């Protein structure tokens, strides 16, 4: 029977399917971090349980970690006592259970969804979970990867399995070619604006089509990362040569004969001819323009040249109330354009857009410019390895000379629980994934956009269409 990519990975991991019960699904790789794991280790401790497969578990520090530059001693200071206690607890838990942990500031520390792929841990056909909804990121490699709660973290730690009902499948097909200045972030923002923040609920998304195939791995990760913003726990892209070229040679990638065997298996994973999906949606990449959000969920997005929607024109009472509430929070008027709207902060980073290709896009835009006065610009690499690579390429100098802050690796202002945050009322253009009320700091107001749009906005201090800047420069590689 013809199967989809998802079905192949699912079927290969079903340990048992008892009647009238969820399936028991085997987990190949478990990623943990300081915020959603401590209470899970407490469960293990209370019951006298061990971590079943420490060799398939890895820990990093990212959410509550400061990104402030290192002191003269080379150490990143953690001044928040609660954050410090949380980080110490992670180390203690990992030592007790023999789990490798990448501590703050060390060589491989970084955002959990940046380091997994970077280390070659994320591989096609795997099941990968983490107590973090953006685990969907790893689906870019043809893995089934999804976020779980802390009770489930305990389940995986103790049994290496999860109880799961099989989700439905949803093909998102994107054909065509992106115009200059339009990037992966614009694709995913357009998809979510179309299907809505609940549109993917109950489904695993599979992104297909020529526009997806032409993206590099980091752009694919940006797309899969935001699957959860459409309500889908997972998003997947079939592995291909682009995927294999990314993985080969990385630290935990299979080597030698094991590589050949893995490769042969990975090549069987793409969706079979004739396999069907429960639902489909098609988007034409030719017509896409840079996207920006105007509201308080990622589905409230529009072309950057557009106007803020008018609640008076919304028929559904509940949707209308939601839009009114969002515009009130954002301090925006119906029908106003966003181009030219002033911002206080530009944030370039997060598990959506903090990889080396994201930083190259931003640096290309900022090179030879100064950021606008009164605009704070934070550039936060996703991992220590990304930071090192960026510095080797001189990108840090471009950012600093432009007047931006070059920070240590972490989640930073995407989650605002680590000292990096907006002040009440401030506006930010952010390359992160959520524009929820208060997400980037209590009272802060977020416009989600691509690294190109963020960098163009940083230069002018007002929301700027990156295409107007690109036309004035040499053509750049945007994908």
């Amino acid at each position: 029977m013809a199967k989809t990519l998802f079905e192949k990975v699912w079927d290969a991991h079903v340990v048992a399917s008892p009647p009238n019960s969820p399936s028991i699904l085997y987990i190949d790789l478990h990623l943990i971090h300081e915020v959603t794991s401590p209470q899970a280790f407490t469960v293990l401790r209370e019951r006298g349980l061990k971590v079943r497969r420490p060799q398939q578990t890895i820990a990093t520090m990212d959410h509550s970690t400061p990104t402030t530059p290192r002191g003269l001693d080379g150490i990143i200071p953690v001044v928040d006592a609660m954050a410090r206690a949380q980080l110490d607890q992670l180390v203690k838990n990992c030592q007790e259970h023999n789990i490798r942990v990448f501590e703050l500031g060390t060589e491989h520390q970084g955002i959990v969804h940046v380091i997994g792929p970077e280390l070659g841990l994320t591989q096609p056909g795997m099941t990968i979970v983490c107590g973090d909804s953006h685990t969907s990121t790893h689906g870019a490699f043809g893995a089934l990867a999804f976020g779980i709660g802390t009770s489930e973290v305990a389940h995986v730690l103790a049994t290496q399995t999860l109880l799961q009902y099989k989700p439905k499948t949803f093909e998102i097909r994107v054909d065509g070619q992106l115009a200059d200045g339009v990037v992966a972030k614009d694709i995913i923002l357009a998809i979510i604006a179309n299907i809505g923040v609940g549109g993917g609920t109950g489904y695993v998304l599979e992104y297909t089509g020529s526009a997806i195939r032409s993206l590099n791995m980091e752009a694919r990760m940006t797309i899969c990362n935001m699957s959860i913003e459409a309500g889908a726990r997972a998003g997947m892209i079939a592995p291909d040569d682009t995927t294999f070229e990314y993985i080969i040679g990385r630290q935990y990638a299979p080597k030698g004969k094991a590589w050949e065997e893995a490769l042969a298996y990975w090549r069987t994973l793409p969706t079979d001819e004739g396999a069907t999906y429960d639902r489909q949606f098609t988007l034409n990449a030719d017509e896409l323009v840079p996207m920006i959000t105007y509201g308080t969920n990622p589905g409230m997005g529009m072309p950057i040249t557009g106007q803020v929607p008018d609640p008076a024109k919304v028929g559904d009472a509940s949707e209308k109330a939601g839009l009114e509430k969002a515009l009130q929070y954002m301090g925006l008027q119906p029908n106003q354009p966003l181009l030219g709207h002033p911002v206080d902060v530009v944030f370039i980073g997060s598990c959506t857009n903090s990889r080396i290709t994201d930083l190259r896009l931003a640096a290309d835009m900022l090179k030879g410019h100064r950021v606008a006065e009164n605009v704070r610009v934070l550039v936060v690499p996703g991992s220590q390895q990304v930071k090192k690579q960026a510095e080797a390429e001189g990108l840090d100098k471009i950012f600093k000379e432009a007047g931006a802050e070059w920070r240590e690796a972490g989640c930073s202002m995407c989650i605002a629980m680590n000292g990096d945050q907006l002040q009440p009322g401030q506006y930010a253009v952010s390359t992160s994934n959520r524009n929820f009320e208060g997400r980037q700091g209590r009272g802060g107001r977020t416009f989600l956009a691509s690294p190109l749009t963020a960098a163009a906005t940083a230069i002018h201090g007002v929301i700027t269409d990156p295409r107007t800047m690109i036309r004035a420069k040499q053509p750049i590689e945007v994908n």
Partner: protein
Amino acid sequence: MIMEPIKPFSSVAVPLPIENIDTDQIIPARYLKVTDKSSLAEGLFSDWREDPNFVLNDERYKGAQILVAGHNFGCGSSREHAPWALKAYGFRAIISTYFADIFRNNALKNGLLPIVVDAETHQKILDMIAEVPQTTIHVDLEAQTITLPDGQSVTFPIDAFSKTCLLEGIDELGYLFTQMPAIEAYESAHPPRVSIGGA
């Protein structure tokens, strides 16, 4: 931790008819810097509670155990602190037209009942509350019904496994251990795909 079985109960229902309430609203990230589950109740809807007109600041809803929310409740972050905070505050059931997947899973594991009703019933409940602010709803998990003050009984769906767990207070981790022979068999047939060195 073995859960307390969910028995039938009645409570005043709190109206919060907003769509797409995300877990950052339910509990902002600044409350996640803890290593236990205490003190989460104070974080529940903490930004919205700053508004004196917010519904949870209404004395009439003090002690209420049922929340009636707009569709896609619990979207966004996977933080289980959201159902922990709702439970710690005193809620035992949330009624909506649908829930975000991760939130629903997390709620079920904590004895917080996500009750899905159709749009018409949802609106009827909200209309009833608009008329009589302290509207009491009866919840019976075993019968899979909610009963409204006018006597109308509405059934709600729940999967058989979760229902049994909630009614009998069975915890899923304990259940998974009963499946250990199958897990061991799977592992012996499938070598690990990665092997990471220890701490």
